[in-house]
């Protein structure tokens, strides 16, 4: 297949994943803003940092009020990561890769763009926000369903999957990066009452607050949350899960093409070295440093894939 097409599939998947992640971040931020107005502003700021949009937001000169941040994250075209921008980008990439998509997938992506851009024509009122976010989530579920049900499991499939997991790992790591201070054992030791709302925000931003309690019961500890998000292999947004998938998908590409690549080696190394655990070792080595390292390695892997598979000249 064309390198450009592989790149478009990769980016289409990344943008689709990003729109879903950002919808989840908005949801988490909105909840915290409703329940504790006193810290809402700093929460919104950290959510913007997580979404990688804080610089763009600061450039608009607006304050960190709920309505303004939500509008910026949903529909501001000055924000390249707003849901509207991201869904548009996903659709443009799908159009470029149109010949590699089934009719079902293309129509799902196109419909999702039409539905979401119609929904976001005007500013969304607070009481409509949960509905709007739920439509956005539904739309990505439709795309995912069409994708899983109809796509050939060929090279194009693998490029898109790699995009999905790379973006997802990036997102989970960013959440940890912004909130790492809450997870530091020193804070927990100091013995201030564990901030349940904060924990919940973290878990909600990865749609896993229920799953966590299923696994760990009522006990909320920094160590456990970090373990869950970083090392827990059955959690579909954990770093270990995502990196395993990247290893698998690049592996299939390598076998299909009969050619080993540097990207394959890097993915393997990332998985082996960074995600072997145990969690205590990660804490001992410094959680913040660990996450920074992971984000850097993840980004380097993305660049290597782009080079090895000739997305651009």
């Amino acid at each position, binding site marked *: *297949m*064309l390198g*450009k097409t592989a790149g478009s599939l990769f980016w289409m998947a990344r943008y689709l994943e990003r729109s879903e992640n950002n919808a989840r971040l908005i949801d988490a931020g909105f909840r915290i803003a409703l329940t504790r107005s006193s810290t809402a502003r700093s929460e919104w700021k950290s959510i913007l940092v997580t979404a990688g949009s804080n610089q763009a937001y600061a450039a608009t000169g607006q304050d960190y009020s709920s309505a303004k941040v939500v509008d910026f994250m949903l529909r501001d075209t000055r924000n390249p990561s707003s849901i509207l921008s991201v869904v548009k980008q996903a659709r443009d990439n799908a*159009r470029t890769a149109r010949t590699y998509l089934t009719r079902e997938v293309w129509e799902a992506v*196109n*419909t999702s763009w039409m539905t979401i851009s119609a929904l976001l024509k005007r500013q969304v009122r607070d009481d409509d926000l949960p509905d709007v976010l739920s439509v956005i989530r539904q739309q990505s579920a439709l795309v995912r369903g069409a994708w899983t049900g109809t796509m050939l499991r060929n090279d194009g499939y693998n490029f898109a999957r790699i995009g999905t997991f790379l973006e997802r790992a990036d997102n989970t790591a960013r959440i940890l990066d912004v909130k790492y201070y809450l997870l530091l054992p020193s804070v927990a030791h100091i013995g201030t009452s564990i901030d349940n709302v904060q924990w919940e925000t973290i878990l909600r931003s990865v749609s896993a607050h229920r799953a966590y309690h299923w696994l760990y019961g009522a006990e909320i500890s920094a160590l456990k949350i970090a373990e869950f998000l970083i090392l827990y292999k059955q959690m579909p947004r954990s770093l270990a899960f995502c990196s395993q998938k990247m290893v698998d998908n690049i592996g299939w590409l390598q076998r299909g093409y009969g050619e080993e690549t540097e990207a394959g080696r890097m993915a393997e190394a990332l998985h082996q070295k960074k995600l072997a655990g145990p969690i205590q070792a990660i804490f001992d080595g410094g959680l913040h440093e660990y996450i920074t390292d992971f984000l850097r390695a993840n980004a380097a892997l993305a660049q290597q894939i782009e080079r090895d598979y*000739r997305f651009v000249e």
Partner: protein
Amino acid sequence: MQGQGGDTRAPYQEFCEWFNAEEPARIHRKAQQAEAFFRTTGITFNVYGQEDADERLIPFDVVPRIISASEWRRLSRGIEQRVRALNAFLYDIYHRQEILRAGRVPVELISRNEAFLPMMMGMDPPGGVYTHISGTDIVRTGPNEFYVLEDNARTPSGVSYMLENRETMLQMFPELFAKVPVREVSDYPINLLRSLAACAPPMCGGTPTVAVLTPGIHNSAYFEHSFLADQMGAELVEGHDLRVVGGRVAMRTTQGYKPIDVLYRRVDDDFLDPLNFRPDSVLGVPGIWDVYRAGGITIANAPGTGIADDKALYSYMPDIIEFYTGERALLPNVPTWRCSEPEHLREVLDKLPELVVKEVHGSGGYGMLVGPAASKKEIAAFRAKLEANPRNYIAQPTLSLSTVPIFTKAGLAPRHVDLRPFVLMSPAGVTITPGGLTRVAMTKGSLVVNSSQGGGTKDTWVLED
């Protein structure tokens, strides 16, 4: 749909029986579904000069345009004759120029033609084919009376509408196709692939690799480019995916550069090769021309075929057909005044309010005058343009185009239509898909069917014998 005296024309008989038994409300509902279907499928186009505007839908009308088996036989024979003559003409112009020597076509028509490519002189395109894909615009003016309005030999568009219109009709009214025996159009993409592959260049080894070259997702016809590539199972490439590697034009794949044998290009000649044609173009492939000359790639349609699209040349088509086939044209031309000739110009200026005047190189329905529909002021303005640069125009009588019904809120209403059948040519022969694209002027009385001017489309049925 109706002949003289108001009785239903024979080909429409079965359709009418079905239609009369249907609830208008149901058809109306279906028509709205069709629009939603076109939107989700993404069958939209961008209007040039409105970059920021939303993608637009071409209006679709649910009443099919129906052509009888005998009408189609006559049409397709005439079209085949015409396309063969055009191809022979192109070969001749780029070789010995017998027709110019014989004085049947004036030399200036070629020498002053911007689409003429001197670098094609003496060049033999693979398989001897220039017009791999063409579209012949036809109008019907009365029972068994057809005229050819225009030949499209560059990169005629609209074939995806022909296919998707049928698909839509099949989805909306499946029962109708059980009642009326309509000929299939769905094998067009596979015929296109076969036809292109049959023109593989000398350097091709094995199964030819075919690719479609598009200017990109912002082009107004991008939907069609991706649609055709998808249906053929061919790669859809842009200029930046291609480069010349080892004497072949090759595309950048995930595993390195792979040579292309046949390039179905949907960009104009000017944008093919920045080294040899237009240096400012970013769309093309530097050096593709040299590969073409050396027999390393087939370009479809061949560079330089645009001379056959010229509206001044059009008026010579009956002579061209006779010159190369020894037969009279089976399908007549619309009588045409060439404004470059003083007597013709005088005549045209005399009866401007009755005529249709077109730019020689124009397309898309832009820059034309429809005399009977124009105001006095518009006619006066056009008269000035015509006098200032007569060579730029041709004029034709306003034909009493036949109408076919469209479905409106108030029921069926007559509208003017034309027809563009699509023709494939390869060394193996000429293939014409039964039917084509019917374009319809959606406004009452209008004669302009171009989509850029608000025209719509219909499914076109050719009946089985």
